[in-house]
C-alpha cells in the first residue's frame, strides 16, 4: 500500500483534538471528506491524535453506515428504497441507475467513479423518489421524462394557521435580518427561570419527536438536577421513515430553533448546546452554521451559552436520546439502560435536556404569546399546533401544519385526497414504529387522546397513504428490512427479532409463508415489544402487529382467506386483482429484480445522462 499523506488529515482534525474522544465522529467525517474513505493509517492517526483505542475507532467506523473502511466511489449515489419512495418506483430507479453504471447495489464502478447503494428513508418523502447524490438532494426523479431536481430540496408546506412554519416554504432560508430580533428570548431573559419552566409546563407542550413526554417536566428535571455543566441537545436526527418536518424547519427557519434552544438553555442553566443532525441531511449543515454565526454576531450566543453542530453518520438508532449522547461522546450508538434518565445523567454523564426540533420551535411561540393564549390552539388535552408529514399516494404531499383536533379526513383533504382518484387502502400512521390505519379511521381526530383510543400512535406525525392498488405485503417487507438494518444489536430481542421478523415478512411478501409463520411473527413481535432495551426494539413490531389485526389473511400460510370482518374480504379481493402486478420482493429494498423494473426508453436514459452532466457541473 502506498504511503498515505497524513498532513492534510492532521490539519483537518486539529480543531477536534481538544474534544478527545467526543471529536471522533467529526474527525472521521473530516477524514472521509479528504480521502473518500477511512483507511487503516488514517484511522490509526485519528486514534493516536484523539487518544482513542484503535479497536474502538474501528468499532465506531463499523457501526455507522456512512463511514467506510474500504474504498468507495468518488460519487456516492444513495437511492432511497423505503416506503414512500417505493410507492414511486424507487426499485426501478435503483435498477436503472445500477444498469446504467453496470454495477449492482452496494458496488462501485471499476474506475472508482461511482458507488450506488440502496438507502433507508432519506427524509425527502414528499418529493419521492429521492436520491442523496453526494451531499446533495436529488428529488422527484422521473425516469420517463428524465427530469429531476438537484440541490436544495423544496419545502412544500400547507395547512393553517401557519405558526411554526410561518417562515417555511418560501424557497429560501430565513436570515436573522428577516427573522428579526429574538423577541421571545428577550422576554424570557426578563423572567425568572422557574417562571419560564412553569410557562412551558402550563402550555401543555409535549415532545414532538415521538415519545410525547411533557417538555416542561424535562426542563424542570434538568434544572433541578445536581451537576454541572448542564447541556441542551436538539435532536435533529430525524430518521423515522416518512418523517421530513424537521428537515424543513432546519432548512427554512433555523433561527426559530436556535431561539428555542437558547431560551431552554437559559431556563435550565445550560452552558452548552448540541444540534445533532442526521448524516443524511448534510446540506443542512452550512445553513445551520450560517445561522449560528449570525446568532453569535448578534450576541444571542456567547461565552455563557453556545451551540455546536454534530453530524450523525447513518444510524437511525441515534435518534434514541441515550444513543445520541453516546454518539456525541464518540462511541457506537448503543442506547443506554434507563434509569438514569437524561435529566440527571445525559451527555457526558451530566444533566441534559434533549428536545426534538419541532418541540423547540414551539418555545418562542409559547413565551411570546403566553401559555394561556397558546392553549387556545388545539384541544384541551392536546394543545398547540402540530406538523404532519403527508406522503405516499396523495395529490399534494408535504408538511401540513394544523391545530390538534382536525380529523384525518380533513388533513388528507388538505393534501388533495388520494392521488389519481383512487380509493384509500391504508395509512401508515406515526412512522415505521407506528401503526396502520384504514378508511375506518378517517374521522378520528388527530389528538393524543383520540389517537390513543383508536390505537394509533402519533409518533413523529407521519401520515403515509397507500391507495387501493398497492400491495401491502411489500410494505411489510420494507418495514422488516428497515428495522433489521437499523437495530444496533445490543439487546437480544431486537438484535435477533428484527432479523427473524424480516425473514418472515419477506416470505409474506413473496407469498411463500410457512406453517406457523403468523404465530412466529407474533411471538417475535410481542417479545421485542415487551423485552427490548430501547424504543427501537419496543416499536419494531408495532406496525406489523397492527397489520396482523387488520389483514390476518396476508400472514397466513394456508392460502385460505381468513375473514375477520366483511370489509377485510372486499379489500382482499382488490388486492388479488393487483396481484399480477405486484412484485415478489426478496430482502425488500436490497435486491430489486430486473424483471419488475419499468424500463425507461433509451431516450429517457440519454436525457437523464446529459442532464446529470449538466447538473453535476454546478
Amino acid at each position: 500500500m502506498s504511503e498515505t499523506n497524513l498532513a492534510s488529515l492532521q490539519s483537518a482534525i486539529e480543531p477536534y483534538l481538544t474534544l478527545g474522544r467526543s471529536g471522533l465522529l467529526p474527525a472521521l467525517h473530516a477524514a472521509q471528506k479528504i480521502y473518500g474513505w477511512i483507511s487503516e493509517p488514517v484511522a490509526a492517526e485519528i486514534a493516536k491524535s484523539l487518544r482513542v483505542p484503535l479497536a474502538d475507532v474501528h468499532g465506531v467506523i463499523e457501526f455507522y453506515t456512512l463511514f467506510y473502511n474500504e474504498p468507495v466511489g468518488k460519487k456516492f449515489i444513495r437511492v432511497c428504497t423505503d416506503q414512500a419512495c417505493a410507492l414511486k418506483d424507487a426499485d426501478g430507479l435503483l435498477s436503472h441507475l445500477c444498469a446504467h453504471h453496470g454495477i449492482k447495489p452496494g458496488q462501485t464502478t471499476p474506475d472508482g467513479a461511482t458507488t450506488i447503494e440502496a438507502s433507508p428513508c432519506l427524509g425527502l418523502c414528499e418529493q419521492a423518489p429521492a436520491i442523496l447524490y453526494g451531499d446533495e438532494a436529488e428529488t422527484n426523479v422521473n425516469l420517463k421524462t428524465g427530469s429531476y431536481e438537484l440541490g436544495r430540496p423544496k419545502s412544500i408546506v400547507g395547512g393553517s394557521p401557519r405558526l411554526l412554519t410561518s417562515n417555511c416554504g418560501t424557497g429560501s432560508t430565513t436570515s436573522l435580518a428577516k427573522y428579526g430580533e429574538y423577541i421571545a428570548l428577550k422576554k424570557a431573559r426578563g423572567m425568572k427561570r422557574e417562571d419560564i419552566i412553569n410557562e412551558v409546563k402550563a402550555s401543555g407542550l409535549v415532545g414532538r419527536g415521538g415519545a410525547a413526554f411533557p417538555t416542561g417536566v424535562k426542563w424542570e428535571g434538568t434544572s433541578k438536577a445536581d451537576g454541572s455543566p448542564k447541556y441542551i441537545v436538539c435532536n435533529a436526527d430525524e430518521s423515522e421513515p416518512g418523517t421530513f418536518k424537521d428537515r424543513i424547519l432546519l432548512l427554512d427557519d433555523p433561527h426559530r430553533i436556535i431561539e428555542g434552544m437558547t431560551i431552554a438553555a437559559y431556563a435550565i442553566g445550560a452552558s452548552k448546546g448540541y444540534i445533532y443532525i442526521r448524516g443524511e441531511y448534510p446540506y443542512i449543515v452550512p445553513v445551520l452554521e450560517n445561522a449560528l454565526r449570525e446568532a453569535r454576531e448578534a450576541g444571542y450566543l456567547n461565552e455563557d451559552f453556545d451551540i455546536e453542530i454534530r453530524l450523525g453518520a447513518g444510524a437511525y438508532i441515534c435518534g434514541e436520546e441515550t444513543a445520541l449522547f453516546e454518539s456525541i461522546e464518540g462511541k457506537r450508538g448503543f442506547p443506554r439502560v434507563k434509569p438514569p434518565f437524561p435529566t440527571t445523567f445525559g451527555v457526558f454523564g451530566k444533566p441534559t435536556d434533549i428536545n426534538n426540533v419541532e418541540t423547540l420551535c414551539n418555545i418562542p411561540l409559547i413565551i411570546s404569546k403566553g401559555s394561556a393564549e397558546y392553549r387556545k390552539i388545539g384541544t384541551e388535552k392536546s394543545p398547540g399546533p402540530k406538523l404532519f408529514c403527508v406522503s405516499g399516494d396523495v395529490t399534494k404531499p408535504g408538511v401540513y401544519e394544523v391545530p390538534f383536533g382536525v380529523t384525518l379526513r380533513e388533513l388528507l383533504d388538505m393534501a388533495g385526497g388520494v392521488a389519481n382518484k383512487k380509493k384509500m387502502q391504508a395509512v401508515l400512521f406515526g412512522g415505521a414504529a407506528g401503526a396502520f390505519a384504514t378508511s375506518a379511521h378517517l374521522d378520528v381526530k388527530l389528538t393524543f387522546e383520540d389517537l390513543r383510543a383508536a390505537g394509533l400512535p402519533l409518533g413523529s406525525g407521519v401520515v403515509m397513504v397507500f391507495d387501493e392498488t398497492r400491495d401491502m405485503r411489500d410494505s411489510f417487507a420494507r418495514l422488516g428490512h428497515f428495522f433489521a438494518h437499523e437495530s444496533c444489536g445490543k439487546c437480544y430481542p431486537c438484535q435477533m427479532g428484527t432479523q427473524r421478523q424480516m425473514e418472515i415478512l419477506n416470505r409474506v411478501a413473496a407469498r411463500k409463508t410457512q406453517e406457523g409463520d403468523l404465530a412466529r411473527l407474533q411471538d417475535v413481535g410481542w417479545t421485542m415489544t415487551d423485552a427490548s432495551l430501547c424504543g427501537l426494539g419496543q416499536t419494531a413490531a408495532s406496525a406489523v402487529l397492527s397489520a396482523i389485526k387488520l389483514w390476518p389473511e396476508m400472514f397466513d400460510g394456508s392460502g385460505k382467506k381468513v375473514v375477520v370482518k366483511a370489509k377485510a374480504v372486499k379489500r382482499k379481493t382488490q388486492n388479488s386483482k393487483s396481484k399480477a402486478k405486484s412484485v415478489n420482493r426478496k430482502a425488500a429494498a436490497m435486491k430489486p429484480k430486473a424483471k419488475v423494473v419499468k424500463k425507461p426508453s433509451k431516450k429517457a436514459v440519454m436525457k437523464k445522462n446529459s442532464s446529470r452532466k449538466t447538473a453535476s457541473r454546478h
Partner: protein
Amino acid sequence: MAIEVSLTIDGQQVSVEQGTTLLKAAQQIGVDIPTICFHEATTSNALCRICVVEVEGQRLLQPSCIVKAAQDMKVQTRSERVMRARRTILEMLASTMDLSDAPAILTMMEAYGASVERFPDAERRESEIKDDNPMYIRDYSKCLLCWRCVQVCAGDAQYTFAINFNGRGFETQIGTFFDKSIPETTCVLCGQCVGVCPTGALKPKREFLLEQGMKPEEISVMNTGRKRRSKKE
C-alpha cells in the same frame, strides 16, 4: 445501618437491603431467574433480556439483573409474558448460533420448552475459527454477544482495548482493529476474555487442540507459549 425494603416475588414476601437487584432478591428466597449475559465480575448491561420479570405497574418487562428492589414492589418471575419472552429469545438464539459448547443454555431451553427448530430457514451467524495466536482460538459461530470479553478487555478489568465490535444489529461480531490478528493488537494474552466466555467461542488453544484429537505430548512440543510458562514452574 442499611435500609431494608420489602417486596413480593412470586407471592413470597422478602426483605432485602436497599440497592439489591431483583435478581439477587429472588436468589435470597430460592427463586431462580435465568441469566446469560450477567456475570459477577462485569458491568451488567441488561442486554440478553433472559432475566426479565414482570413488575406490577410497569408497562414493559424489567431486566432483573439491574432493576433494584423497591418497597412494596410486586414481581412475577414466571408470568405468561415472561415465559414467552424467555422462550422466544432462546429459540432465536438456537436459530442463530452454535450452542454445542453452551450446556447451560441448552438446559435452559429444555426448561422453557424452547424448540431448536422454531425458526425454519433462518440465517445463522457463521464464522471461520480464528486461530491466530498461541493462547486461544476464537470461534464466533458460537458467540452470543454477551459483551463480557469486550468489557474485561476494556474498563471492567484489563484496560487493554484490543477488541471491539464489527458491524451492527444481527451482523454484529467481536473484532479487532481492521481485523488484525491478535498478536498484532494490544492484546497481552491475559486470558480474561476466555475466562468469561459462556459459550466456548473463546477457548484455550490447548483445550481446542485436545478436542481436535491431539495428544498432550504432541501439544507440548508445539511452540504454543505453554513452554515459557513451564520454565517458571
